[in-house]
């Protein structure tokens, strides 16, 4: 399927091949973005250049430039209101839905500027999924929730949909808990189950990247642990960028950390390094709870 994959990144060819699903997804993402010449896997999934985000006159994100590595978990931390969610939303153009939001700069996804007028934000969001702070299943059955993303892509093959629903629920560690009640309303599930359902729903369309905005902040420690475990497993197949207020969580699950403060990306680097920053630096003080 993939003709030549030049290994340029952390992740090797065999890993891509091992997962058939992954290979399909990769090619799909590239063709959708009209960039058929790049059959290799980039080292960086997102390259962000001089990103500014404004709401009316208020600047929420200030001149951020960063490259986000592929196939790792990248955590975004920082005090409340510093622009983490705004930054995350800009990566699948959910900011477009906010009437007075304005954005300048470039965000390259697989090397393609997603704010290019030729790029359809609808197609982009099918490649870059999102999971929100509050679990937000649709008021449909569990099955219909997971199948929704496929249905809107005009996939009519019932067997394929059923297969994909099962697979996605398994990937989200939810299958065993719901396999006997797929036709039951999703809103009857517990908060943690609902959140995993939302992850399953996002996974069903084979996204390339998953953006998670404080996905565990409304969950108890047990449900949180389950989601962390699942993200650890998923990162082999999907790029994961997660906003979290839980520093321990960032430390536990992420390979890279970006630290925001009042709209600026103050620090970005491997998690280990970030968490070893001295108490003199802003990150150090934030991590030690001295400010923020």
């Amino acid at each position, binding site marked *: 399927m993939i003709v030549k994959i030049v290994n340029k990144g952390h992740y090797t060819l065999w890993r891509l091949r091992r997962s058939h699903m992954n290979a399909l997804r990769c090619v799909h993402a590239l063709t959708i973005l009209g960039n058929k010449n790049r059959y290799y896997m980039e080292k960086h999934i997102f390259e962000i250049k001089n990103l500014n985000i404004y709401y009316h006159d208020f600047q929420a994100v200030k001149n951020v430039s960063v490259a986000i590595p592929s196939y790792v978990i990248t955590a975004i931390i920082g005090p409340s209101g510093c622009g983490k969610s705004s930054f995350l939303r800009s990566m*699948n153009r*959910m900011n477009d*839905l906010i*009437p007075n939001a304005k954005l300048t700069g470039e965000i390259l996804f697989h090397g393609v500027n997603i704010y290019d007028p030729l790029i359809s934000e*609808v*197609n*982009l*969001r*099918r490649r870059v*999924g*999102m999971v*929100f702070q*509050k679990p*937000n*299943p*649709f*008021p*449909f059955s569990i099955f219909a929730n997971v199948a*929704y*993303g496929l*249905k*809107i*892509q005009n996939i009519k093959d019932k067997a394929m949909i059923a297969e994909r629903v099962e697979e996605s629920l398994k990937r989200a560690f939810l299958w065993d808990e719901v396999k006997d009640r797929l036709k039951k309303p999703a*809103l009857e599930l517990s908060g943690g189950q609902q959140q995993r359902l*939302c992850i399953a*729903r*996002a996974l069903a*369309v084979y996204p390339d990247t998953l953006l998670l905005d404080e996905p565990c902040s409304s969950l108890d420690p047990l449900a949180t642990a389950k989601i962390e475990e699942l993200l650890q497993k998923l990162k082999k197949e999907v790029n994961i960028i997660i906003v979290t207020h839980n520093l321990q969580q960032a430390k536990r699950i992420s390979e890279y950390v970006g630290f925001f403060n009042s709209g600026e990306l103050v620090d970005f680097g491997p998690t280990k390094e970030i968490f070893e920053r001295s108490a003199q630096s802003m990150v150090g003080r934030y991590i030690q709870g001295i400010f923020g």
Partner: protein
Amino acid sequence: MYKHTFQTKEKIIELIFGFCGMFSLFITLGIMGIIFWETTLFFKEVSLFEFMFSTQWTPLFSIKHFGVLPLITGTLLVAGIAMAIAMPTGVLMAIFMNEYANAKVRRILKPVLEILAGIPTIVYGYFALLSVTPFLQKVIPSLSGFNAISPGIVMGIMILPMVVSLSDDAFGAVPKEMKLAAYALGSSRFQVAFKIILPAAMSGVIAAFMLAISRAIGETMLVAIAAGMKPAFTLNPLVPIQTITSYIVQISLGDTPVGTLAYRSIFAVASVLFIITFIFNVIAQKLRHSLKY
């Protein structure tokens, strides 16, 4: 001493409020009582079987027939035409206002709809009779001067604001997070509107329809003016018909003496009207309470 006066004051206020509440209840019960009393008197002279199954309604002729079916078909015909227009248009307009229109367009549309809702029904009646019917006659030459289709269409326009505003409320109650989830999965605006918002708000929308139907069935002036006064057991929208309400108008405004059979017949048909609208209202209430959010 002070405490005592305070308590009596409270008591008096409570009594006044209680009385106001009871008053509306008594009025309603009183009206119902009179209607059903006169109805029982009517059924002492006319058999229930004839009332329900005869297809002729001729209370003012020398040979009297009391089959309510022509009035019911007339009523449902006009209401049906009205709903056929108001339901799709109303829901589409509500979706437009909710998902597509920006704040500016909304600010214009809302008051326009309120004005539409505030027009007296007699104006709608003459609009149907003097504007819509002549226009339709150019398209359908066989159309009579009084007919069901013209007041039906105008009634659709008349109940449109109600359908729009109630559906708009139902759509507005769908949580924003749900729409965001749909957009994040790569839904187009159209898909969000029709695959998420509409199903999620379905019970509210159906409740809006029910209330609109009962309004359409109870509407009087419009049909009395433009639909004719000729009871006909037909579903043909091109000929004159009579609805329950316009029959009641006809008898109440005419010189029918109190206590005659014709006089009592208006209470019998009023009972029918009451039962029909009551059923639709109950369904609507049930659905509105079952709204999930």
